[in-house]
């Protein structure tokens, strides 16, 4: 434990160093190198603790609330998330190192000293904050770290404050973050003992009554949910995540949302004690809504990073579904199934952190190479940036849950858990689970469409702008930063069982069971959870067989078929010129049109406006799309309007005359006197 704490302290030191030496060229090397090393250390430590088990590492520091002090504790759950966070930290640092340098070259250093806001000092702080949340073991330390994390990321978002829409995004982000913190504050207010003992141990010791527990569940879903991006509290996420530099976006989207998930698990599974069945029902419902809405949003986007952010919303929805299932089954006293669902949740947490980081890195690489995030200005990058293209393809396939990659394993486990609905007693739940399953399946399929769109438009086809046509592959550091998660995606897809084995202590801690309980023989390369009723999946064999078959196929074909190849210009619907197809090529919005028509027209009131030139007019026809964000209309705008209206009304008080102010005073006095006179009767 001391090691983790000192590591975090070291992160602060790195931050200070970065602040001090931000002028020097070596600064970024120091910061990112130091951060990566520290993260590696913590991740390793956590992995070892999980592997060897043993008692939880604890530590009490004489800071924080005087009569509580700062309790730090790393149990199995914390260890799991420590691995996730710091893995993300390592890759992000690796990528960020290259990213920063590339951008400094492209900006030719900074003329007025601060072209970009300071990222270097804040980046380690952000990671330190997330790590602190994971090891905090009393409400005060927890919320302090939680809010500190938000603060650091807010400033990181503001590092691009020169760009027009950053301030709005940053503001909304910090507001929603504080709303979440407020909800968590209230929740812990209920949980804490009357005489102000905020330590988790004390909270566990005195369990709240049903009403209080219900209140806490709602508040946690609001508080942690707003951070994780549960619909309709997600409005800030697709604005704030893309605004930051790409490696920070990766951390925010891939990792910080997981910290929010950690908060949910910590409270719902650990602190609140025995769950009731409806907790899971609510969580699941929100999850399903979030999953479907998130991916539908993503399908409407033309901005690569915003699209990715919305897809994060979708994945959070999937995780929430898994958590809800786990809660339901835990409440139904079928721990093994609960363990299965929870394993699915944790696995998906890891997977998403991997491929979402990877994809954000890819977006960053595109941004570096073409200077644009707009899909309609990209295209054909597979020729210009081959490595990035391959890695991004892995990411896209993984997030679309294609076997034998890791995304699919998570989905598979989740569906296995859903198939156990008959084990429950409540009808409403059984039916809800069926519906939720449908929603999840829909979301998965739509995600596939979404990433075909992203990859097909950005990397395939022909360049849609000069910059895209002249893009050059990014540097080695960035490519390495993308390669690491890509490789992990494949490895985890082929061999998920060892990882789940590693997580088993956490599962036992939370639902008193493991997914493989009661299985006599369980080879390490085989995934066959007990509760999955004889169902099993084996990515390894699948990979081998696929490889085998394709070899057979290729050999077979090439022995018979002709190898003659002729290159030519494809038919461009009668348009001539050097590259006819480029004119008629599909754009992002035109690709999205069928799905928009099928779903968007109702949910988003999406409308296509086609501007068709008259015959003989040679200008191209234009397809423009308009749509409205329901969450925005329902949640944000009314609030903003209400506050504005009230502020306007209140503002009159600023412009009264002294006599009127005296009148106010007089009235206040009289009112109080009357109150006293009345109370004395």
């Amino acid at each position, binding site marked *: 434990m001391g090691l983790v704490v000192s590591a975090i302290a070291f992160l602060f030191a790195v931050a200070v160093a970065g602040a001090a030496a931000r002028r020097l060229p070596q600064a970024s090397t120091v910061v990112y190198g130091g951060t990566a090393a520290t993260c590696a250390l913590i991740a390793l430590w956590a992995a070892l603790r999980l592997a060897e088990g043993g008692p939880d590492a604890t530590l009490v520091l004489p800071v924080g609330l005087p009569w509580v002090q700062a309790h730090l504790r790393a149990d199995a759950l914390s260890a799991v998330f420590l691995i996730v966070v710091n893995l993300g930290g390592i890759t992000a640092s690796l990528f960020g190192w290259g990213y920063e340098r590339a951008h400094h070259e492209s900006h030719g250093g900074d003329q007025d000293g601060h072209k970009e806001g300071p990222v270097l000092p804040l980046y380690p702080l952000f990671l330190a904050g997330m790590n602190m949340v994971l090891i905090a073991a009393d409400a005060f330390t927890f919320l302090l770290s939680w809010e500190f994390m938000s603060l650091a990321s807010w400033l990181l978002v503001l590092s691009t404050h020169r760009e027009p829409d950053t301030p709005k995004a940053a503001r909304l982000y910090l507001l929603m973050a504080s709303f979440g913190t407020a909800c968590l504050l209230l929740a812990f207010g209920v949980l804490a003992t009357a005489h102000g003992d905020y330590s988790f141990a004390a909270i566990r010791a005195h369990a709240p009554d049903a009403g209080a527990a219900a209140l806490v569940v709602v508040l946690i879903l609001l508080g942690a949910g707003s951070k994780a991006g549960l619909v309709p509290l997600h409005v800030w996420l697709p604005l704030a995540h893309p605004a930051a530099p790409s490696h920070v976006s990766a951390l925010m989207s891939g990792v910080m949302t997981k910290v929010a998930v950690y908060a949910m698990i910590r409270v719902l599974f650990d602190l609140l004690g025995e769950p009731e069945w409806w907790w899971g029902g609510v969580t699941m419902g929100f999850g399903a809504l979030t999953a479907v809405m998130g991916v539908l949003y993503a399908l409407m986007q033309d901005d690569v990073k915003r699209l990715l952010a919305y897809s994060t919303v979708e994945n959070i929805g999937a995780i929430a579904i898994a958590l809800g299932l786990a809660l339901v089954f835990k409440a139904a006293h079928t721990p093994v199934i609960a363990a299965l669902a929870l394993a699915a949740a944790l696995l998906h947490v890891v997977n998403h952190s991997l491929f979402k980081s990877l994809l954000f890195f890819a977006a960053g690489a595109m941004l570096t190479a073409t200077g644009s995030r707009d899909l309609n200005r990209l295209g054909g990058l597979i020729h210009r940036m081959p490595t990035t293209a391959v890695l991004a393809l892995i990411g896209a396939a993984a997030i679309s849950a294609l076997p034998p990659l890791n995304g699919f394993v998570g989905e598979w486990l989740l569906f296995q858990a859903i198939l156990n609905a008959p084990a429950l007693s409540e009808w409403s739940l059984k039916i809800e689970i069926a519906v939720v399953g449908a929603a999840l399946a829909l979301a998965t399929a739509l995600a596939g469409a979404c990433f075909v769109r992203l990859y097909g438009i950005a990397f395939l086809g022909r360049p849609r702008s000069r910059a895209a046509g002249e893009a050059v592959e990014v540097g080695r550091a960035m490519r390495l930063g993308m390669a690491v998660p890509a490789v992990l995606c494949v490895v985890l897809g082929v061999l998920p069982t060892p990882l789940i084995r590693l997580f088993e202590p956490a599962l036992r801690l939370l639902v008193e069971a493991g997914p493989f309980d009661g299985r006599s023989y369980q080879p390490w390369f085989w995934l066959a959870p007990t509760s999955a009723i004889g169902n099993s999946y084996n990515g390894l064999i699948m990979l081998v067989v696929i490889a085998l078959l394709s070899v057979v196929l290729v050999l077979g074909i090439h022995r018979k078929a002709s190898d003659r190849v002729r290159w030519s210009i494809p038919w461009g619907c009668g348009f001539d010129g050097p590259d006819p197809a480029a004119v008629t090529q599909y754009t992002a919005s035109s690709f999205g049109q069928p799905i928009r028509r099928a779903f968007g027209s109702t949910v988003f009131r999406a409308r296509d406006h086609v501007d068709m030139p008259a015959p003989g007019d040679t200008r191209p026809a234009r397809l423009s799309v308009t749509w409205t964000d329901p969450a925005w209309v329902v949640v944000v705008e009314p609030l903003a309007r209400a506050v504005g209206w009230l502020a306007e009304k209140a503002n009159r008080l600023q412009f009264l*005359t002294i006599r009127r102010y005296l009148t106010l005073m007089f009235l206040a006095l009289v009112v109080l006197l009357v109150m006293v006179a009345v109370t004395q009767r």
Partner: protein
Amino acid sequence: MSDLGYDAAHMLGAVVLLMSFALLYQRRLFSLLNVFTMQALALTATAAWQAYSHGEPHLYITALLTLVLKAILIPVALHRIVVKMKIHRTIEPALGIGLTMVAGVSLVTLSILLVLPVTADATALTRENLALSLSVVLLGLLMMISRRNAVSQVVGFMSIENGLILAAVGAAGMPLVVEMSVAFSVMVAFIIFGIFLFHIRERFDTLDMQKIESFRGESD
């Protein structure tokens, strides 16, 4: 304490209260000042009487101060201000006189209501005296908010002070009365100087919104 003493104190206090009502009733500045002078005299009498009946010599100082400042200097000063600054002689009330009267009466009832539960262990004198001074203070405040121009508001302010002193002298053996009344008089003096130096005729109740907005730093 003798009945006479009690009645006399009570009666004098009642006169002060009566004068407060009279103040509310005035429509012309000069008569307002005259009524205020009378209130000050009544207060002086009360203070002197209390000094005598309780045998507290320092209250004589209070009485003297009240006499010199409130009954002589300040009315004169205000009189000259009105003349020099050509403040027109009638008071424009923000609240109709009748309404003000009603409000005043209800304030007095409120103060009596408040004082009733005061238990008997507090002597009857403090009780009456408390009701009286409370009413005087509230009426003074009412005066300040129901009049538009500066001078009458100053008068209202000072009648609040009269209420305070009425309470103070009534409270048996209250120390620091003199010091406080001095400190208070300083403040009153400040106000009067303020009016005099900065030519504040209507600043209490400017109706000119632009002016206020610029004063409040919010103009565009």
